[in-house]
């Protein structure tokens, strides 16, 4: 759409302009500040405007926009339509750029002395993102107006997926602020002044990105059915790595504030986090990992841009860093090991190491190509290398909080007594329970030590200000998060079960009874399992349905949550031997024996054949002659009613001033179509045109070229499809242009109803499926009593008991709250510093 494309272009040009002006401002031309701000604000307005416009187009089902067509559809409820915004790459880049624009608006009001240089670099990043959007514009239109979109991946149709991507992208965007501050500090040759204003941003970035990561994990646990929340997939890793380096930066800044150390490290960390975001984006979006990840990444042809993006900013960032490197003088980090400084430093180093190890694993397919065949690493690599690192981190978290800044505290030993004692008790309890693997036991011990130390340290403070509780909360939350992760993953019990319908099966202290498949209004059928334990019932509604979007069976688990453990029931499949054996496929004129019956398929009879073809609906009969054991002959004609209640007409836009044209009826066999116009430009209300005919109507001539069914196969198989009517419209004195109104047939799920036919001996036969082309029907005999021995349908499930997984989620929640509390504190600090200097 022109408006959107124009907005992106204006945004791109004003981003270039703003960064050029801000460069001059950085060089001391303060008089240009007003103009620079204005241009940047214009860019932000364009981005907010185009995001709002794209959302509007999605909500209004404007399928002539390719992006809207590809990622949304009419059947989606409004809240999922919102998530169609980030269903595709262009939308996510637009979201990213928009957040960057908003961050810039805040930055220009608060960055003070750093405004010129930070906004210059931010403007450059924005220019790159907008260049990408110019090239892969989300507002590109299609030559025709499709009736309906392709829909949203059903996996993403979950409330968590409505909020997870925008939060994650906010975190990605926030990483740009430490980056531009670090570069600004290097330009100004001021390695000290940037840490106060950058602190709230760094905390914000880790908070938002971390929260986004956890939400993604929660979604995976709830929807994907493999039972975990973290799989070391490139998509997850690419968000984790910048989180680790940015969290290292937060701790590095704490040290720099205390004693002026780590100045160069902090600048490097600030630069790296953003570069790692871009690197992760490159790996996951360019298609280079397509053969190594379960996520199927598409190469949108943006690989070149992303490479340029990384190379330019890495060269700029690292170049500036090494240019200033020698001139930055920093003090020693610690004077004694028994000080908080030493253990915070340990944390910074270990966070950096974890980032490096994850980066190595994630980039493995690319790195290994330098030495031999491209190789990915299995997730076991991450588990093995990260556990020792995490153990040291947890002990470091405990020591850091129990020791004082600058150390030399005489009463230090007594502070360790209670936390250590409680840790010992917890560890023994876990060992007695079942945690025997030494490294895991050590990690749970470290997690408890971190938890108890932080609780103890906060409790023994003289002034317990909630505003200062952030770090304690984040650290104690992280401690229990690790305990939950180790126990729920390492000590789960799992069993594959086959549940015959209505027969109770005992497993792991539960009694499970499969109750059958229930239909559901959203078309995602429910396989219901009743779970009973000690008189308490839980109705496990696992889902199993076919998704035409993913072209596969989707399975969603049911989870009975509890404080002690979760019961996780993942459906595998319904085995229905009876249904299979009681269905027989027959061609016309064939004779088959079904049980005691001899069946002859005489003819396939169509009622309203034209209606069937055009999608208006119709009926297909299978005429059968059934002879029972006594030689009695009956005629039976089960039928399949094909109705198209979902039929929808999509008008086509006529050349300007002529309004719209819609299809009101069509007779495909007679090659006729009835059209209606909306009265603009003297066009008639109703007209009938034959194929090939050209008629003069109002201010234009209209030629009906042909019917067109893009997906003819779909129509034959009764799946939803669209029929387009290709017109060529020539306005008086204007140029001819193609117009293609359409009707959708079947819109949404195919609407077929099988009408059974009664048999003389009792029972009934119905059509299970039919192929009109081959004159073949599949008949279902399951409602003929006594025909076959009854084998109950059986549901295969995987049942897992996950102990203490609630601790994991609780830990993530507390850590997230801890970050938030710290964010408020650091933002206030910088606010106060600003008003002091003003």
């Amino acid at each position, binding site marked *: 759409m022109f408006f959107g494309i124009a907005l992106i272009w204006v945004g791109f040009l004003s981003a270039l302009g703003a960064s050029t002006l801000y460069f001059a401002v950085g060089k001391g031309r303060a008089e240009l500040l007003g103009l620079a701000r204005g241009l940047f604000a214009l860019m932000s307005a364009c981005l907010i405007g185009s995001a709002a416009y794209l959302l509007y187009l999605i909500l209004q089902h404007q399928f002539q926009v390719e992006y809207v067509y590809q990622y949304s559809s009419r059947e989606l409820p409004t809240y999922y339509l919102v998530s169609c915004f980030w269903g595709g790459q262009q939308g996510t880049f637009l979201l990213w750029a928009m957040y960057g624009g908003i961050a810039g608006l805040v930055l220009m009001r608060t960055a003070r002395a750093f405004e010129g240089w930070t906004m210059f670099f931010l403007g450059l990043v924005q220019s790159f993102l907008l260049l990408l959007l110019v090239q892969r514009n989300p507002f590109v239109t299609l*030559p025709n107006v*499709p009736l309906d979109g392709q829909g949203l991946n059903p996996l993403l149709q979950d409330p968590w997926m409505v909020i997870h991507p925008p939060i994650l992208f906010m975190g990605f965007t926030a990483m740009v602020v430490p980056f531009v501050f670090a570069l600004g500090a290097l330009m100004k040759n001021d390695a000290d002044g940037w840490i106060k204003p950058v602190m709230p941003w760094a905390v914000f970035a880790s908070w938002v990105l971390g929260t986004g990561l956890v939400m993604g994990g929660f979604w995976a646990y709830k929807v994907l059915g493999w039972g975990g929340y973290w799989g070391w997939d490139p998509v997850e890793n690419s968000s984790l790595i910048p989180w680790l380096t940015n969290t290292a930066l937060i701790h590095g800044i704490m040290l720099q504030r205390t004693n002026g150390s780590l100045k160069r490290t902090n600048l490097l960390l600030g630069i790296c986090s953003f570069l790692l975001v871009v690197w992760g984006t490159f790996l996951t979006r360019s298609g280079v990992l397509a053969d190594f990840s379960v996520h199927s990444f598409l190469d949108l042809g943006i690989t070149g841009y992303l490479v340029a993006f990384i190379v330019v900013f890495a060269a700029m960032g690292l170049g500036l860093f090494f240019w200033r490197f020698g001139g930055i003088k920093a003090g020693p980090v610690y004077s004694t090991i028994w000080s908080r400084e030493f253990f915070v430093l340990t944390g910074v180093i270990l966070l950096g190491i974890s980032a490096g190890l994850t980066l190595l694993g994630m980039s493995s397919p690319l790195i290994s190509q330098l030495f031999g065949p*491209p190789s990915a690493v*299995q997730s076991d690599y991450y588990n093995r290398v990260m556990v020792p690192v995490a153990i040291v981190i947890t002990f470091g978290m405990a020591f850091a909080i129990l020791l004082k800044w600058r150390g030399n505290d005489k009463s230090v030993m007594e502070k360790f007594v209670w936390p250590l004692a409680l840790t010992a008790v917890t560890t023994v309890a876990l060992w007695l329970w079942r945690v025997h693997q030494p490294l895991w036991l050590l990690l749970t011990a470290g997690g408890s030590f971190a938890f108890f130390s932080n609780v103890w340290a906060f409790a023994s403070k003289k002034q317990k200000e909630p505003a200062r509780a952030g770090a304690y909360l984040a650290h104690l939350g992280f401690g229990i998060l690790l305990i939950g992760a180790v126990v729920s993953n390492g000590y789960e019990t799992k069993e594959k079960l086959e549940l015959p319908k209505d027969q109770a099966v005992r497993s792991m202290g539960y009694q499970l009874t499969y109750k059958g498949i229930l239909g559901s209004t959203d078309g995602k059928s429910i396989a219901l399992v009743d779970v009973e334990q000690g008189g308490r019932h839980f109705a496990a509604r696992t889902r199993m349905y076919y998704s035409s979007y993913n072209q*596969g069976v989707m399975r969603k688990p049911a989870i009975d949550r509890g404080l002690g453990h979760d019961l996780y029931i993942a459906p595998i499949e319904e*085995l229905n031997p009876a249904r299979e054996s009681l269905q027989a496929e027959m061609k016309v004129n064939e004779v088959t024996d079904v049980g005691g019956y001899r069946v002859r398929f005489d003819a396939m009879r169509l009622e309203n054949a034209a209606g069937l073809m055009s999608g208006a609906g119709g009926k297909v009969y299978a005429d059968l002659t059934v002879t029972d054991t006594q030689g009695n002959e009956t005629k039976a004609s089960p039928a399949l009613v094909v109705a198209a209640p979902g039929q929808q007409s999509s008008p086509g836009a006529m050349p300007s001033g002529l309004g719209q044209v819609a299809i009101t009826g069509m007779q495909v066999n007679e090659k006729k179509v009835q059209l209606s116009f909306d009265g603009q430009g003297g066009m008639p209300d109703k007209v009938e045109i034959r194929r090939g005919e050209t008629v003069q109507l109002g201010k234009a001539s209209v030629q009906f070229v042909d019917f067109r*069914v893009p997906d003819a196969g779909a129509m034959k198989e009764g799946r939803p499809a669209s029929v387009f009517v290709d017109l060529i419209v020539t306005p008086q004195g204007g140029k001819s242009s193609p117009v293609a109104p359409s009707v959708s047939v079947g819109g949404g799920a195919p609407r077929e109803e099988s009408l059974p036919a009664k048999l003389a001996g009792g029972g009934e036969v119905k059509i299970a499926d039919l192929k009109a082309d081959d004159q073949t029907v599949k008949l279902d005999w399951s409602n003929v009593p006594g025909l076959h021995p009854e084998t109950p349908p059986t549901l*295969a499930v995987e049942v897992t008991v996950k102990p203490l997984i609630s601790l994991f989620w609780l830990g993530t929640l507390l850590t997230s709250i801890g970050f938030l509390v710290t964010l408020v504190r650091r933002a206030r600090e910088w606010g106060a510093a600003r008003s002091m200097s003003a």
Partner: protein
Amino acid sequence: MKWTHALGLCLLVMGALAGLSVYRKNLTPYISFKDAVRSSGIVQVHGTLEKSFTHYDGKELSFRIKDEQGTMMDVRYADVKPGNFDQARDIVAIGRFESGQFHAQKLLVKCPSKYQEMQRKQGAPVPQGGV
């Protein structure tokens, strides 16, 4: 250099070496069927599914894939059949070759995506066709 620095450096180097060895052990090279047959470790192979050889009994999935050189390989996967397996065109299997068969621990199913098909036909997002 203080003894603490030396100790810290020592620990870091040891950690790095241990990490690298774990890394090397976990690398699964992407190789041809011929090399997979000869290799003893865990590898990754990629091939086109030969539809008529697929068999699934609810507990184990077996199928045949063909690589670019036209070499065939039988794969066994002792787990639930992936939901989109029936629509699969290409399969990436991770596992090891043992006694005449490839025992997969993990499968990545590659389905022909409607969207990709469309991208290929640039400029004609809705393909032509008659009733």
